[in-house]
């Protein structure tokens, strides 16, 4: 259930390479989040950012942990937050965590948020890694291979967690420009049989694009039934999808695009897909953000980075 709420920042932790992990106290939204969904963040007050910013929901967690650390590290702002009662299904999640990189004006302003600050949060949004559909595919597959480029990693933690719970073997291929882009690796470690890292400058893991180790692994794992799940820049997705096709492996992609509303009305985030649908375009925010790779038309780079 999507709601539009004013929520409180409990922590905005700086990571390497201009990345941040923003924790928001949003119990209702945290509990209704499913793997692969996203949130629209609105900066309040006299913000120079007019529109909300779309962000993958990286993780949902109970209030203790990140929030308590934030409470101890800041003397003010946190007194209003009390742990809520557990919901009927025993889900005690209260925090929504957004992993983001400063790439423009909106994310710059986000990076200045402090514990106790308020933001507008419209969440959870979109069709994520559709649990029923992808779990069925995943169970048929021998293994799930996650492929992440840069901040695309943010879309994959919740799917990885739920797949691990279902007892499915997983592997992560994660690339960035430098080692500073490889954030959150430790969060994935408990859920992955193997993690392959790559950086373009060779500062961590394989030197080059992440799709190269992926290609090698696909070659050597010939015959194994897989499901690929990818999120990252257009060129990486394009290369991943090409490799998946070559090896006859199904591939899900989590897409990004500029968004005006996140609700499916501005039609600003539409991407080209095969077949009829909403014309020959579908909305990343509504039909997506997760699509089957062979449904998307990959002909040229069209998704802006900022």
């Amino acid at each position, binding site marked *: 259930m999507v709601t539009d709420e004013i929520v409180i920042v409990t922590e905005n932790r700086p990571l390497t390479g201009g990345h941040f992990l923003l924790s928001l106290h949003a119990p209702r939204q945290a509990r209704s989040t499913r793997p692969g969904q996203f949130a629209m963040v609105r900066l309040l007050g006299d913000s120079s950012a007019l529109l*909300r910013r779309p962000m993958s929901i990286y993780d949902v967690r109970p209030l203790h942990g990140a929030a308590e650390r934030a409470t101890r590290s800041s003397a003010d702002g946190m007194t209003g937050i009390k742990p809520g009662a557990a919901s009927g299904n025993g889900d005690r999640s209260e925090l929504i965590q957004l992993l983001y990189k400063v790439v423009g004006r909106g994310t710059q302003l986000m990076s200045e948020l402090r514990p106790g600050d308020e933001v507008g949060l419209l969440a959870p949004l979109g069709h994520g890694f559709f649990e029923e559909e992808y779990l069925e595919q995943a169970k048929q597959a021998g293994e799930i291979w996650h492929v992440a480029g840069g901040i695309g990693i943010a879309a994959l933690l919740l799917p990885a967690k739920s797949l691990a719970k279902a007892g499915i073997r997983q592997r992560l291929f994660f690339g960035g420009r430098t080692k500073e882009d490889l954030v959150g690796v430790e969060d994935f470690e408990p859920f992955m049989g193997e993690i392959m890292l790559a950086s373009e400058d060779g500062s961590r893991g394989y030197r080059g694009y992440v799709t190269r180790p992926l290609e090698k692994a696909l070659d050597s794992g010939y015959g194994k039934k897989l499901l690929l799940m990818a999120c990252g820049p257009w060129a990486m997705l394009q290369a991943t999808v090409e490799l998946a096709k070559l090896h006859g492996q199904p591939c899900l992609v989590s897409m990004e695009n500029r968004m005006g509303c996140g609700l499916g009305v*501005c*039609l600003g985030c539409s991407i*080209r897909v095969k077949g009829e649908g909403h014309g020959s375009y579908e909305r990343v925010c509504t039909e997506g953000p997760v699509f089957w790779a062979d449904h998307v038309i990959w002909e040229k780079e069209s998704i802006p980075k900022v």
Partner: protein
Amino acid sequence: MTSNQKKTPATGAETQSPEEEFIPRLDVTVAGIHFQNPVLTASGTFGYGQEFAHLIDLNQLGGIVVKGISAEPMPGNPSPRIYETESGMLNAIGLQNVGARKFLEEKLPFLRALRTRCLVNVFGYSTEDYVRCIEILNEGEGIDAYELNISCPNTRCGGMVYGNDPRLTEEVVSASKRVARRPLLVKLSPNVTDITLLARAAENGGADGLTLVNTFVGMAIDVETRAPRVSNVTAGLSGPAIKPVAVRMVYQTYRAVQIPIIGIGGIAKAEDALEYVIAGARAVQVGTANFYDPGASLRIVEGIRDYCRRHRVHFADLIGALRLPDHPAAPATEYAST
């Protein structure tokens, strides 16, 4: 509003201040359509209504203007389609829509069930297109009015050809009016030297009202790559950035035509809406604000109510209630032609 609605229980009534006793009327009639309040959501910013049903009470809105509909479905433009600018946004969606027949089958039944008025924005590439679209829509039940879009800046040979030329405006409006079984509003483009010429042309063509204004043609460039920010190269600017220009156009047009005006452009709060009304608009549309603040329209209704209560006026008394200085230096009505 009847007098018994103003009455309070006898006990304690005499202790109430006059402000609390005054209950302003917000309802208004525009082009023969009665609206429970003057706040409508603008075409292309509110989908087909349903998308907001879980976030706000749609029955509290004055009206919903649905996304522009053409006789045939339209795919729209390639990505990127939008870009945020200072206090505004550029969009070049390319009028992606499901087409008139699918709208009637799939979208209209939901809208019909609402108390809120339903207006359908109509566009085409030729006069015949507009006429054909209206003829299809005429078959649907529950549409309260048409809003003729002759002002989209983002389609190759689209509406703006009409919106820039008084002769063509009059032609497409009168052809549409002949077939339309509902009141016909015409949404004008601001990308003209003198909007009053187009307003009069629409009036002469038989328009029952005007919507002022559509987006301003704009452009943004990524200097690093030297590429336009939006695939269509140019795009329509909306949001708070355009409000002062659009208010001026409403002010000018109010003095140039007899038909009612609906004001639109950068309205995000009640004060914005009231500026348009005082300049001469009978109703307003909220557009871009719906994207980042789904509750904006209903808060504007409440803000207008508060204003009316505070000033002890009914909404209708505010229309065109501008207090001009005794000796305006340069009358704005002549601005465009000087």
